[in-house]
Every structure is written in C-alpha cells, then in structure tokens.
C-alpha cells in the first residue's frame, strides 16, 4: 500500500546525539519559507531560528561548525541549510533549562535524540522541560546519517577523503573520493570510546567490538599529564611534541631493526617505555607527553581496526567520530598504519562531518514518516 501524505513534521527540525563527552545537534533551517508561513510562524520558533543561525557560539561552550554547514539541502520536500552545533555533555542541564525557559514544549515538535544521553537525560527532559524524547539507537542513526551525508555530498564536493601516499610524509596528500559502493565497510567510530561495526547494508550491520581507549582516554590522560583543559589545547601541544622522547623504539632496545621478526628500528616497542626511567621522566616536556598520548591511542585504534578488518574480511575501513576533529596527526597516522601493516591491502577513509552522523541520523528519523514510502 502506498501511503501518500503531505503531513510534514512541524518545525523546528532537530536531531540530537548526546554522547559521553559532547552533544551534537543538527538544525535544519528552512530557506523556502513562504510569506504565509512566515506569518503563521510563532514568535517562539522564529526566535530559536534567529538565535541559532545568527550566532556561531552559544554560551561559553556551544559552538556552531560553520565550515560544515550543508547549504540548499532538500529534506522532506523542503529546502534549507543544515547547521552543525556541539557543546559539552556537561552543559546538558543548562540546555534543558533553556528548553524550559523558551517554552519549547509549546511547539509540539518531536525531539529526536540518540546516544547514551538520550536515555540518561530522558527523565530530566520530561520533568524539567515537559519534553518527550524520541529515543533512537546510536548505531542505527550513525549509519543512516553517514550514508545520507555521503549521498548528498558536501556542498558540491565529496564528503569522503583518503590520503594518497600515506607511507611517505613528504608526498602524503588528502584526496577527495566517493563512497559509491560503500558495502561492506568497517566503520570505526571514535568518540570518548570506540565502536567498530561491520556494515553490509543500511540496515544490516553488526558491532564487531569496541575499545575503551578512545578520544576520552586521550583527553583524560593529557589533562592528567600536562594540566591542559580542552581537546584543542591538548592537540595544540601534541602538534609540537615528539613522541620518541617518551616511547621506547625497537632501535632503543635492539640497536637497530629486530630482523628476526622483521621489525623496523623506528617502530614503537613500548609506549611510554622511556618513562620507566626517573631521569627521563624528570626532563620530559608536556608537548612530548601529549604527542605520545595521541600516538599511542591512535596506533592502538589502528591496530585493533586492522585486525577486525582482516577477521571480517573487509578492505575498506571508514574512520569517523569527533576524536578526528582538527586532528590531522591521527588521520594521517591511521592512514599510514592501515596501509603499512596490511601491505597496501587496506584503505583508510575519512569523512568531513566526522562526529555529526548520529545527530543527522536522528533528524532523519523525525522526517522518516514523510520520506519516500
């Protein structure tokens, strides 16, 4: 039975992904509003639209990633711009408070939310702001959102990219590409922790494994080791550091390559291995420590992802998640690790909208009732 319906969900259109560290929010701003609509638009709704689209920062910690905005997008028969906003999960109580202050519940919209916070904060939304959440599974949303963004592209450019010549730091360059025939793919989502999925189609996937050594571990350890406070600060320090002052390399132990096992002298033998010595601990810089933390976590994720790819017999490994935001050290390292250890068999792919796919997937659920039958 073909269901023909003109019933579109009421504005505003939001999709939300409440993670362990960050809340990711996507907001669809319709640009095809008719005069009639404009007239009917309640003041409340208008003020939300203006507030979100005219600012790039909200409060002390909210940020709109303007460079990621998808313009003139058609969703559910409407044209508009998709905005990408993030703020720390810690600010969640304040966000809910704001929802109440703005009397959000009067708009009769459905708030689609995914991520663990959809469960954790459900009751707070209900009691504090009189809002009912439509809770969605984060992995379903992640895959749906990713495939959608890849399909619509990034304002006329491909969403996806890889690194050419990943094993050569001099000639390693970022190259756009498309995920034309994306299945099967190994999807590695690096948030606070890491989930690894084998995806065979939009609706057929399994979670292969995960690891607790993720973005949260990088930031957590960096804060303890260097006293930094933000991800940006930690990455900034890491970009200036040298991990070989912290890590013990194969050549530090064997004087060169360990030929019996084909290990290069430059390979890391023991992460933080030099730090067993007190003299070295006393003279190490914060930048070096930050870099070593970043390299350790990244290499480990690469290693687990590669093993999963081999075990699942999948050659395409797609890395997403906010750990990769402004983090070219890690993306290049992952590209290198995939290429080197698989002798060119595996290819690492990345996506421009790194951590926002879950939120996009949640928004799509809202529009689903009116999507193509």
């Amino acid at each position: 039975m073909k269901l023909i319906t003109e019933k579109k969900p009421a504005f505003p259109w939001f999709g939300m992904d409440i993670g362990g560290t960050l809340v990711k929010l996507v907001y669809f701003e319709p640009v095809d509003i008719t005069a009639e609509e404009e007239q009917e638009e309640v003041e409340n709704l208008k003020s939300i639209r203006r507030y979100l689209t005219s600012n790039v920062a909200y409060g002390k910690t909210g940020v709109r990633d303007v460079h990621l905005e998808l313009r003139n997008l058609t969703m559910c028969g409407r044209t508009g711009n998709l905005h990408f906003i993030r703020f720390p999960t810690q600010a969640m109580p304040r966000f809910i408070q704001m929802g109440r202050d703005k009397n959000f519940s009067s708009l009769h919209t459905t708030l689609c939310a995914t991520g663990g916070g959809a469960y954790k904060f459900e009751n707070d939304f209900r009691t504090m702001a009189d809002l009912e959440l439509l809770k969605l599974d984060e992995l379903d949303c992640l895959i749906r959102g990713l495939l959608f963004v890849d399909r619509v592209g990034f304002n006329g450019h491909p969403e996806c990219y890889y690194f050419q010549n990943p094993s050569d730091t001099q000639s390693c360059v970022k190259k756009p590409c498309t995920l034309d025939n994306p299945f099967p793919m190994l999807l590695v989502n690096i948030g606070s922790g890491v989930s690894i999925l084998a995806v065979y189609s939009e609706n057929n996937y399994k979670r292969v494994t995960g690891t607790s050594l993720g973005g949260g571990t990088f930031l957590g350890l960096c804060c303890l080791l260097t006293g930094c406070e933000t991800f940006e600060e930690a990455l900034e320090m890491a970009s200036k550091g040298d991990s070989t002052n912290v890590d013990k390399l194969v050549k530090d132990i064997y004087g060169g390559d360990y030929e019996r096992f084909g290990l290069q002298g430059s390979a890391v033998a023991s992460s933080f291995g030099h730090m067993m010595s007190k003299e070295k601990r006393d003279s190490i810089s914060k930048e070096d420590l930050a870099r070593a933390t970043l390299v350790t976590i990244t290499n480990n994720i690469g290693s687990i992802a590669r093993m999963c790819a081999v075990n699942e017999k999948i050659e395409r490994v797609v890395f997403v998640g906010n750990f990769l935001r402004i983090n070219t050290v890690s993306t290049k390292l992952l590209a290198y690790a995939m290429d080197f250890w698989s002798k060119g068999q595996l290819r690492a792919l990345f996506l421009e909208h790194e951590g926002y796919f879950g939120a996009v997937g949640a928004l799509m659920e809202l529009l689903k009732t009116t999507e193509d039958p």
Partner: protein
Amino acid sequence: MAECGGVDSNPSSHTMDKSITLPPDEIFRNLENAKRFAIDIGGSLTKLAYYSTVQHKVAKVRSFDHTAKEAASDKLYEISVQEEVTARLHFIKFENAYIETCLDFIKDHLVNTDTKVIKATGGGAHKFKELIERKLGLKVDKEDEMTCLIKGCNFVLKNIPHEAFVYAKHADSEFRFQTTNPDIFPYLLVNIGSGVSIVKVESEDKFERIGGSSIGGGTFWGLGALLTKTKRFDELLQLASKGQHTSVDMLVKDIYGGSYGYLGLTGDLIASSFGKSATADKEFSKEDMAKSLLHMISNDIGQLACLYAKLHNLSRVYFGGFFIRGHPVTMHTITYSINFFTKGEVQALFLRHEGYLGAIGAFLKGAEEDNPNQYSWGENYAGSSGLMSVSPDMNPMQRARSGTFPFDMLEMDRLERQLMNLPLLQDPSSYIPDTVDLTEDALAREYWLDCFEEALDGVVKRAVASQPDMPEAALRAEKFRQKYRHKLQTLRNQPFAYGSLTVRSLLDTREHCLNEFNFPDPYSKIKQRENDVALKYYQKAVKSLEELSWEERQFALVRGVLAGNVFDWGAKAVSDVLESDPEFGFEQAKRQLEERPWLVDSYDQWLERLKGPPHKCALFFVDNSGVDIILGVMPFVRELLSRGTEVVLASNSGPALNDVTNGELQILTERIAAMDPVIQASLSEDRLTLVQSGSSSPCLDLSRLDKVLAMVARERQTDLVIIEGMGRAIHTNYYAMLSCESLKMAVIKNSWLADRLGGKLFSVVFKYEVPAGKPGQDSAALTPS
C-alpha cells in the same frame, strides 16, 4: 618486545651488594661438576642455568651365584649401594643487584669445568657482558631472546606436568592446573614485557611473531610512574590493587544512565578509559589512577590476543613476561579480559616456570650437541622452590632489606628413560592420574598433610636403620626430616607450589628428599627379608591352589592378590601392625579382608569374562615386594599364562617404599622359574615379559611411562590392563578410562580414605571395567586372529 628491554629503567636496583653471603648448601648446588652455563638477564632479575652431574647412591641388587656358593648365604640376592652419576639442570633466579656476588661465588666454586662459553639472552645481557667475561673467564655468546623463550616454553610444557594453569581469583583454589596434553602444538604465546609480542608456535622449530603491541608492561610502568609519582613496578601494582577505577573511567552507565541493552553492554563496562579525568576539576587518587591504567592495559592486551587467536584459530593462549610473572593482580585482569572478549571460549593460561623460559631456552641452544630434547626430564621437588614461595619477583625490596639473599630455584633431573603415554588410554588429553586434587579439597589436604607429617618419624627411623654401617646416617636423616617438613609447611601455605597437590606428589616429594640425602632405598633390607620368606611358601601356595576347583581357584587367586596387597609399608595402618608383629602372616591377612560383597565389587562380571576366551595379553602393574608379588601376584599371573594369555609385568624402575623394583623382580622371577615349570616355560617362550615402568613412585602416571613399556604394550596387542594397590589403583587411576578391559584391585589400608569412599579399613576395591562399545565376553571372538 620480548623481555623488558628496560635495563636502564630500574637503575636503583643495580647497586652491588657484596655484604651478603650466599648459603652454599642451598644455592648453586653441584657447582663442582657444572658445565654449560646460560644466563638470562632481564630488567631486574637474572636467571642462571647450568648443567651438572650429580653423584648419588643407588641401591642395586645382584643375584648370588647359587650353584657355586650355596652355603654363602641363605639370602636370594645381595644389596649393594653404588654411586651413580645422573644429570641435572639447575636454574637460579636472583636480583640483578647480586650478579657480581653470584659471579664471584661461581668462580670460587667452579673446578671441573672445561666450558669456554656462556650462552646469554635477555635485554640486560649486553650490559653485563664485560663483567661476566672478566669474572668467569667465559666468552659471552648472545642468543636471540624470542627463540630462547619459545624453546624454553616448549621444554617446560613437554617435561613438567601441571606446568600450565588457569587463574581464578575467587575460586576455592586460585590455580587450576591443566592436564598435560601430549600434543602441545599449536599455541599462542603472548609475551608482555615492556611491549607485547604475540607469537604463534607450530612445532619445535617453527614459530612466527604474528603481531604485537606497544602498549605493554613498559606503558603501565612508565605512564603509571608519571601519573602517581611511584617508581617501582611492584609498588604500582600494589597501588592498583587498592584502587577504584570507576572514579577515573567513564562507564557505560555514566553515558547511558544504565546499561546499553540494545547491544547487551552492561552499565559497569568501561566505555572510555580515563574518560572522567578530562571533565572533572578534581584530584584523583594514585590508587584509582593506577587501577584504571591496569584495566586499560590488560583489557587492551587481552583484546588483541583474542583477535589474533581468532584469526589463527588457536585456543591455547599462554601469557608471560614481566607484566605477568606471578603477579595475581595482572593474572586476574588478563584472565578477565580474555574471558570477556572471547565470551569464555578461550582461557588465559599461565606457566609455573614462566620466569625461567629464556634461561632454559638459552641453555638448550648451547646444549644442542647433547640432544637434551631426546631425554625426558622431571622436576625435582626437593631442589625446586615452587610457585610463589620465596620468589624474588614478589616484593624484592622488602626481602633485600631483611639481609637474606632472595633466590628461587628450579632443578630438573634427566630421567634414565624416555617417557610417553600408555597407548591404551582412552583419551590421553583428558587423562588425570590423580583421584583427588588436594589443592581444591581443603579437608582432604589437611588430612594428608597431617598424615605425612605424622609418618615422618617412622620414615626417618627406617632411613637410619637402612644404613647401619654409616655413622653419619643419623645426621643426614635429620636433614631429610627438616627438608621434608619444610616442604610440607610450604604446601600448607601454598598448596599450588608444585602444581596440583596430590597424595602422589606428597609421596614423590618424600622420595626426592630421601634421595637428596642419600637414602636411595630405605626399604631394601626389609624387601630382601620379605622376599626371602615369601619365596619359601611359593610352591606350597601354588600346590594348594591347584587342588581347588576352577571356580574356587579363580576366587582364591583374587583373594590372594588382595591379601598380599595388605602387606604394605607405605600405608600407616599397616606399617604399625607390621612393625609390632613381624609374623603377621598371609593367612591372617586373608582373614582381615572384607567379605563379599566388597566395597566395589565386579567380581561376578570378571568371573563370567574368565569363562570366555583368554585375553591376548595382560599388562600388570605390580605393587609391593614379598608376599604381595610372590604369593599374590605370581600365582594369578601363572593362571593367566595357563589360560594362554601373555603377561607383561610392569614394575618400578627405581625404588619407592617397599614396592618391588624391576631389578628385584628380575631375580625373583628367575628364582620362581627355577621352581615352577609353568613360569619357566613362559619365560623361555617369551610369553612372560618383565618391563620397567620408568617411574620411581608408589603411584602411577599412565601418561609418563617408559617408552619400551608403551612399545611392548602396543606390539603385544594388550587387551587387559591390571593395576594393583592403593597407590596405583586408588590414589591414582581410580577413574582412569582405558580403551581395553581393565582390572583395578586394592585393599584400602587407610581408615580416613576408607571412610571417604564409604567403606572401612581393609575394604576391598575390585573394579573390572570394559570400555563402552566393547562387549567384554565376546571381545576376543570379534578380534581377527
């Protein structure tokens, strides 16, 4: 990487301490004859290996020439104590701090060596190269670390029963030892040194490093030291064991408010290690951070190990390296991780002698020309320290301060005979010789430890009495008493010290300790006397049996074996009687026997079977000297031979209690043959064969038997195995499943054990079994001729 490469990482422990005097009786034993040295120097511990010959006294029996000097003696044979030279491997583990002291000691005591080189491995080998060469005058010859490690691993897995164990923190016994699978390959070795190496071992010479990780022991140590300002590895582990990781780690429930039910992830699962330390502006305790770090690293290694095990389809995964080395904390977290990631399909395995693998391997590399792999070796319980007893791995600082020299030893004897499985075991990989595991049965453990302690006075007395011409025997016997009592004390505190604690291991430990102090055969004279007496009655016994009807005779023969088995100096209840009343006779023993139905009684089935066709060949594991073998077993064997069944008599290679040895049995059989034409004919027609078991234990391990025995059993198409006596048929093999018919006969001569089995003193076990699927009566008919 392999070993902790961090030789420079723990400089504080390298301060030479020359004030310590080494206990020469205990450490570096048999150094006078040492040859072939090997050394493995790790980040903090040195492991030294050497091969030495040991002279000890053995009791030999020799038949008198009866034709020439009939009057010389009325004894059947003479006993002489001879010096025998055997080979032994010594391994000693001590802290690097004592290396110079030890090298000096070795130099002073080394006399008879023509050795020119010392094999060396381990990250610290190059650092001490010059010192070793200067002190010992030996050339240091470096061997690849991983090759040594694997060689050592293969060696212990093959030669030491109960080498591998599973660690279960909350179980009644923390250590669950694995039965020795005759086929040790393939396996995965995950070596957690400063980094991690994952090695797939497919055969003796074929192994491959299939992967690894840089997150290892060095990461725990280095990162842990940065986070907690704690310098030492073991102190970090102590911190970790006291901490709560949940204040530092972000759990699934911190994100979800509860579990992530859709994926089946429980709320307590760690979602992000150190995830909370990024967001909170609070201080974290050292303990909590250390704990979180420990979990992070253990889980990560466990996950990688599982991925590699899955990829290569391997289910045996051994963990080693300094991160593991006897630390309950890390064994627990690794076990937990493996269990989690494989959903219980793979068990993490650990090794009792893991710390010695490199040294053993380096030694084997140097000894290749002696073909050490051609021999079977056995752990010497008298000369080995045992798991976690005085190991310098555990809290070395504390011991160093106490002023004693902390060391750990392993000694392995080269066995005269090459050992292998009895080919008639139904499933060699699941065969467990011992009936009760005292490591898991606390009540039984307490009883037997007390029992052995109480029996010690008697053993000492007999040991002294066995050497009346040696005035210093009393002093040696006293040393034996101290040593064995100390072993019993160790086993009370650490029942797992030598693998599963069993009555067999307690008996074997006692034999090893007796040998250690040159009491090779305390029962030799008693056995001699008993054999002489019993022989006088042999013909009479056979004659009276022949007068019986066939059916009466079958029963009398079985009663004879059982009554003979009452004569046993190994059992406390009996040795008391024997000592007080040496005239305790065969007839009296028969009267002591329980009347039918016996405690375990399948005599009717046995009798039915005997009415059928004869067995092709019976393999009989015999027990005691004297009445048992001569008046009990021999008539029984005679009947089997008369039926047309070939008989192979298996007796101990070396002495244990009053058990008849192969040497004694040779003489006894010859003597009986001279009186009995049936035995005579069977011997000359090769239908009665004597073989040695390869063992010197009052118990019986069917997975470690003399190669010749195994060969004979197979060639003769053995279809009946008879096991006699409490040690061989009850303490061990009571549940052993054989692929042919079997008969286990014993009299329970221990009231506690009788009570346990639901019987009473002198209850009889007569267990005749036919393997499933083989109809006993018709089996011979079905066998193609």
